[in-house]
């Protein structure tokens, strides 16, 4: 009957109807006492519960329509015949809550005497609480933790504490949720480093990671994709420009800038096999069975043009056939050379051939076979291009061949009166040119797809570049800007290309510049969500939330699930406005989560959720040497350690496991190196980079047994139960302790009882300080649970005295021995807190802003929705994806 709207860590949930039962019994209000919850709360709770249990999918549906119809809050479930839940909560506050606050707190925190600049007199009325919800939430947290009042002041009883916190909490909740909570607005969001890197990867198909050299992004609300803190300095803009230029220089290369050859072999450089004579212009004559040959070196694999200037010396039988062979004797081409007058140019024939980079030897064999016989030779096995091997060439003695070269330094002198009977064929020159730009192997792999048609070049100038530039830029800009591109959008980019080419620039270079421009355009660098239709603008003007367009949703989905741009399919779906349709959207979400790109939910989202970035600053060399197997320092990296935790999260997400398995999982995810460190066998059948292995036998369970987590919550030389406790409170239970009051001495400065005091004894002493006691009771009891592990995250030996500390009792009489039991107890009793933490983090990451008090309404709704199935991770994600703040926004309009 009596259901509080939510359960906070350390709070009693005594609703027998809710599944799963028992919620936590935890300090500081650990002494449970069933008491009458005020009527307002109970009423609202009932309504919420009813909605969750009886209307099921309907609740989801109402989320979609959130801006238009509101009944996801208690407000419209106003089946009370007297008062709204808000009014009831306000009444209870005035009757019971405020007097307590006034009694214990306002003495020091009034408008006259606002210690620590906190003035609680503002919280007297509903309106005051509404206007100061941040202060109210802070106050609740201080009361719950018993951080305030200080121990030397007049202290409330535990019951009073609990009641005061609950009443204020209920008021805050109703004040926000009963008034049609807004989806909130997200500021124009700059791509962060990861998003930039991924966007470049997805645009060009190459993982350049240019953003690794950008300055770190600021973190807001725990994530570095927070729109409000992502700023753009001139220095960063400079980096964007440089990166854009470097990227485009890598993905587009002007073939003109690459080595090519245009080499003429004539006279001395055209070698002849057999007897020979020299003509007036260096032509070389051969006998009827002679050959000419050349050695040519080509810079790169590609298709080359081979031109041969030659002619028979007699009109009869002209034209005649000659054949071209490679050094293996293979027939490569057949030429037909016509007779030419003695003084004239020789007949020009040419062929194209793909050559590998390096040296090639080509032979031109005189046959004197009349070309008219060619038809007869069609099926002759001696005349099959690409098949026939001419043995004399294949078996040619290299030394003898070398003899036929004209010795260096020798100049051929023209012979007079050449006997054309004996020398019926002459070769004027052989020219090898190339490679043809499109065929060369040293162009960037994606260049062809990126540029498509290349405009023609006349008189050293590219002509009519507008068409090809448009064709290439439109799809690129569409993906980079994540929306359809109008001609108007495209125009400045195309003009840029035209302008550069008009003044004689290279088309390739011009395209580099145009694409560079796209990569520093605000439309690429910023995600800006503005109303797209007049209707939406009107709604925005009226202060109404607006459903995001399909195009805007495409970006929200891809940046949430991929930390990158939408792909073609998503853009296409957006173009057809399919993403407003929940069913079709769901299909895309399934597809996106199946894509490897969604690993970013591990490497970005989970990584930041659990603060794994802090591993980056640690010196891991000692860590590497202390595992079950000694490793080299360079084998272990922050990435390897972080990956374990990221992979566990991805596993729970993809398998849709209950969130509590984060704490209880008996398997973990390691790469071969980490497996060695842990001393577990790496399965042979597993992929090379990650395998799921059983770790429970090692005394580890879930995330609290991850070496990385244990390491990053320790000091380099010793354990820190405090840090570990704080980490659990923050990241698992979602109840970060208040900051230590100013002037509190650290552990080191606390007076030590004895030189050989254990850590626990020292901490007990530290806690004796009234300023520290309350918070530390919470933190330390959690942190000590992990004393099984030393500051490297190694499992301590069974006889290590510190193991003795790793047991204890959580409030509510929950006893445990060792980290494994602690994890199990937390999973069983703090499931909802963990789920709420997960939802809050997901939502914050998905919409790129810190959650505000009113967002709690949406979080509660998701909790209700997923509770029955034990808060499965994929369910949580799906619910976040249909929550009003994800699907809607509140737009600001231009002020003018």
């Amino acid at each position, binding site marked *: 009957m009596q259901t509080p709207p939510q359960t906070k860590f350390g709070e009693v949930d005594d609703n027998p109807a809710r599944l799963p039962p028992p919620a936590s019994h935890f300090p500081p209000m650990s002494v449970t006492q069933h008491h009458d919850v005020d009527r307002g709360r109970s009423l609202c709770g009932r309504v919420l519960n009813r909605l969750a249990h009886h209307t099921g999918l309907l609740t989801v549906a109402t989320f979609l329509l959130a801006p238009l119809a509101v009944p996801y809050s208690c407000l419209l479930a106003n089946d009370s015949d007297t008062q709204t839940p808000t009014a009831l909560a306000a009444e209870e506050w005035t009757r019971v809550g405020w007097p307590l606050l006034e009694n214990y707190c306002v003495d020091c925190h009034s408008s006259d005497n606002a210690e620590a600049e906190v003035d609680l007199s503002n919280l007297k009325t509903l309106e005051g609480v509404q206007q100061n919800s941040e202060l109210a939430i802070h106050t609740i947290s201080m009361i719950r933790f018993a951080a305030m009042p200080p121990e030397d002041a007049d202290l409330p009883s535990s019951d009073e504490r609990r009641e005061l916190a609950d009443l204020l909490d209920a008021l805050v909740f109703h004040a926000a949720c009963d008034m049609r909570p807004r989806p909130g607005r997200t500021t124009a969001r700059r791509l962060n480093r990861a998003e930039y890197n991924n966007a470049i990867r997805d645009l060009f198909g190459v993982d350049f990671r240019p953003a690794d050299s950008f300055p770190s992004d600021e973190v807001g609300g725990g994530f570095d994709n927070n729109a409000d803190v992502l700023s753009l300095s001139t220095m960063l803009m400079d980096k964007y420009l440089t990166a854009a230029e470097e990227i485009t220089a890598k993905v587009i290369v002007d073939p003109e800038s690459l080595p090519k050859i245009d080499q003429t072999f004539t006279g001395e450089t055209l070698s002849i096999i057999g007897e020979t004579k020299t003509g007036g212009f260096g032509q070389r004559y051969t006998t009827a069975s002679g050959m000419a040959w050349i050695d040519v070196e080509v810079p790169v694999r590609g298709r080359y043009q081979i031109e041969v200037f030659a002619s028979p010396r007699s009109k009869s039988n002209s034209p005649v056939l000659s054949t071209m062979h490679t050094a293996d004797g293979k027939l490569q081409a057949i030429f037909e050379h016509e007779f030419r007058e003695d003084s004239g140019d020789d007949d020009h024939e040419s062929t194209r051939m793909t050559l590998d980079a390096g040296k090639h030897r080509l032979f031109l064999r005189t046959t004197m076979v009349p070309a008219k016989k060619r038809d007869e030779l069609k099926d002759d096995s001696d005349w099959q291009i690409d098949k026939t091997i001419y043995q004399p060439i294949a078996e040619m003695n290299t030394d003898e061949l070398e003899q036929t070269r004209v010795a260096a330094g020798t100049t051929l002198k023209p012979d007079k009166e050449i006997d054309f009977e004996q020398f019926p064929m002459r070769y004027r020159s052989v020219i090898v040119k190339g490679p043809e730009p499109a065929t060369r192997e040293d162009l960037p792999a994606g260049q062809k797809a990126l540029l498509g048609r290349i405009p023609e070049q006349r008189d050293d100038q590219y002509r009519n570049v507008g068409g090809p530039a448009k064709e290439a830029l439109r799809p690129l800009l569409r993906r980079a800007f994540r929306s359809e591109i109008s001609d108007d959008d495209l125009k400045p980019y195309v003009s840029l290309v035209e302008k550069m080419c008009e003044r004689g620039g290279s088309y390739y270079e011009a395209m580099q510049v145009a694409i560079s421009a796209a990569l520093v355009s605000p439309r690429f660098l910023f995600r*800006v969500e503005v109303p797209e239709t007049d209707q939406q603008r009107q709604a925005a003007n009226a202060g109404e939330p607006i459903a995001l367009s399909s195009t805007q949703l495409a970006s929200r989905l891809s940046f949430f699930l991929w930390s990158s741009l939408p792909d073609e399919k998503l853009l296409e779906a957006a173009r057809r406005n399919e993403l407003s349709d929940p069913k079709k959207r769901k299909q895309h979400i399934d597809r996106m989560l199946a894509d490897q790109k969604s690993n970013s939910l591990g490497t970005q989202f989970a990584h930041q959720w659990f603060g794994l970035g802090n591993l980056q600053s640690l010196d891991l060399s000692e860590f590497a040497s202390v595992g079950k197997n000694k490793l080299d320092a360079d084998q272990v990296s922050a990435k390897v350690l972080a990956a374990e935790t990221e992979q566990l999260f991805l596993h729970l997400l993809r398998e849709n496991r209950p969130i509590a398995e984060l704490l209880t999982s008996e398997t973990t995810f390691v790469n071969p190196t980490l497996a060695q460190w842990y001393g577990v066998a790496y399965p042979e059948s597993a992929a090379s980079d990650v395998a799921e292995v059983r770790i429970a036998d090692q005394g580890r369970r879930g995330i609290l047994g991850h070496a990385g987590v244990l390491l990053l919550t320790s000091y380099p030389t010793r354990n820190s139960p405090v840090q570990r406790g704080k980490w659990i409170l923050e990241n698992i239970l979602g109840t970060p302790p208040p900051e230590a009051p100013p002037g509190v001495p650290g552990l080191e400065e606390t007076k030590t009882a004895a030189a050989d005091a254990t850590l626990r004894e020292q901490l007990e002493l530290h806690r004796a300080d009234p300023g520290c006691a309350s918070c530390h009771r919470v933190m330390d009891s959690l942190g000590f649970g992990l004393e099984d592990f030393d500051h490297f995250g190694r499992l301590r030996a069974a006889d290590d005295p510190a193991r003795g500390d790793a047991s204890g009792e959580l409030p509510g009489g929950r006893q445990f021995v060792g980290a494994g039991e602690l994890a199990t107890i937390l999973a069983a009793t703090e499931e909802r807190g963990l789920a709420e933490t997960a939802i809050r983090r997901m939502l914050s990451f998905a919409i790129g802003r810190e959650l505000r008090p009113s967002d709690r309404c949406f979080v509660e709704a998701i909790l209700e929705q997923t509770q029955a199935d034990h808060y499965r991770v994929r369910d949580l994600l799906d619910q976040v994806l249909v929550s009003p703040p994800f699907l809607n926004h509140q737009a600001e309009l231009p002020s003018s």
Partner: protein
Amino acid sequence: MKSNNAPVSAANIPACPRGNHRLGRRTLLRAAGMSLGLPLLESMTSASRSAFASAIDGATAPVRMACIFVPNGVIQPKWRPTVEGYTRGDDGSLKAGDQRSNVVSKDWQFGPTLEPLAAVKAKINLLENLALDSGRAHADGAGDHARGGSTFLTAARPVKTSSNIRLGISVDQVAATALVGKTTLPSLELGLQGSRNAGSCDSGYSCAYSSNISWKNETQPMPKETIPRLAFERMFGSGDAAVQRERREIRRSILDVVRGDAEKLMRHVGETDKRKLDEYFTSVREIEARIELTEAEDRASLPDLQVPFGRVEAFREHARLMFDLMVIGFQTDTTRVATLMLDTAGGNRSYREIDVNDQHHGLSHHRNNEDNVAKLQKIDHYLVEQLGYFLEKLDAVSDGNGTLLDQSMILYGSGLGDGNRHTHHDLPIVLAGGGGGRIETGRVIRYEQEEPMANLFLSMLECMGTPAQSMGDSTGLLEGLLS
């Protein structure tokens, strides 16, 4: 042959202290407001203001030399002047009565083609019946255009080949080689058409022969610059500076485009987004400001000549920019030797701007068709008009004891006489400028017997202070030219 061309007496070369002349040039040019279309102010030109003006008196101011090539010969009857007291034979010969001899006259009138030079008539010489024997076919057969171009400044015989080119040093390079170190650039090679230095362009002659008039030695043509901006960079900016300049230009156009995108976005966003986009605008503005600052610094180190980036398409604008560059190059003593090919030998450009849509080379084989002849003459006239622009510009700059034109030798002409018949004698040659006082101007000089062009080269080299013993088929100094 090479060695014969080499001897140069350093003692004869006019002194030009280098010192901080670059700064002087900068000061001068900025002060003079030298930019396209702006008249130079007489009182501020180099002689009176340059840093080296004080160090050298007028008598020792350097002599400059420019050679300008036009392809396809000319319509000779329209080119030739009328000379008082003489009658013209059909072959161009001048006769006084029945007497034929060398003619030197200061009493003459322009033919229609050369009329654009009227303003500088007193400062030019028309040299008639110079010949390039090396251009003639002899045993090499076809290829007169290639030979006409390649012999124009070398008077050497090109080896007929499409690959292993061999010619001889050109007159400008003889001078340039001797002047190395005196100026930033020993010489400047300009052209309006790109070179094809590979393959064959005219009847088996390598394209190098048709595309280059300036040859550093037997086998090495001097590549010419066709993009004015690049020539400008070469004269006044180091390679790196030019690359940086180009990069700045590119960045500026990128920022232009994206600022447009940002402005469009700004029209749709509310206050909060505006603040974010303002960061964007601010950074764009700051980068632009930095570019501008660097540019201003860079500009301050350059002459104030507005030379557009990239290729210039229109012939007239292109040609005049090239002439401007030569003027500024001489004026600032960045170089003393320049060559310009208004077109490649056998050039096939259409001059649509003067309503000649046919191609030049095609037209030149006019077979006395009146229409074609008229069109050709129009082209000849048009090209001379550009020369007039150059000469007048030179004449507007004070230098030494007179003007830059007085200090220079400007050789203008073609390697062919009659384009229709591919003749290599009686070439159309203008030699403008006083050569620093060594050349009396305002004359028509016609040699009764054809005189080797190479003799003109020797005379010019003599005048440059970089004398040579012989060049090509030279037989000695050109009679009556130098005083």
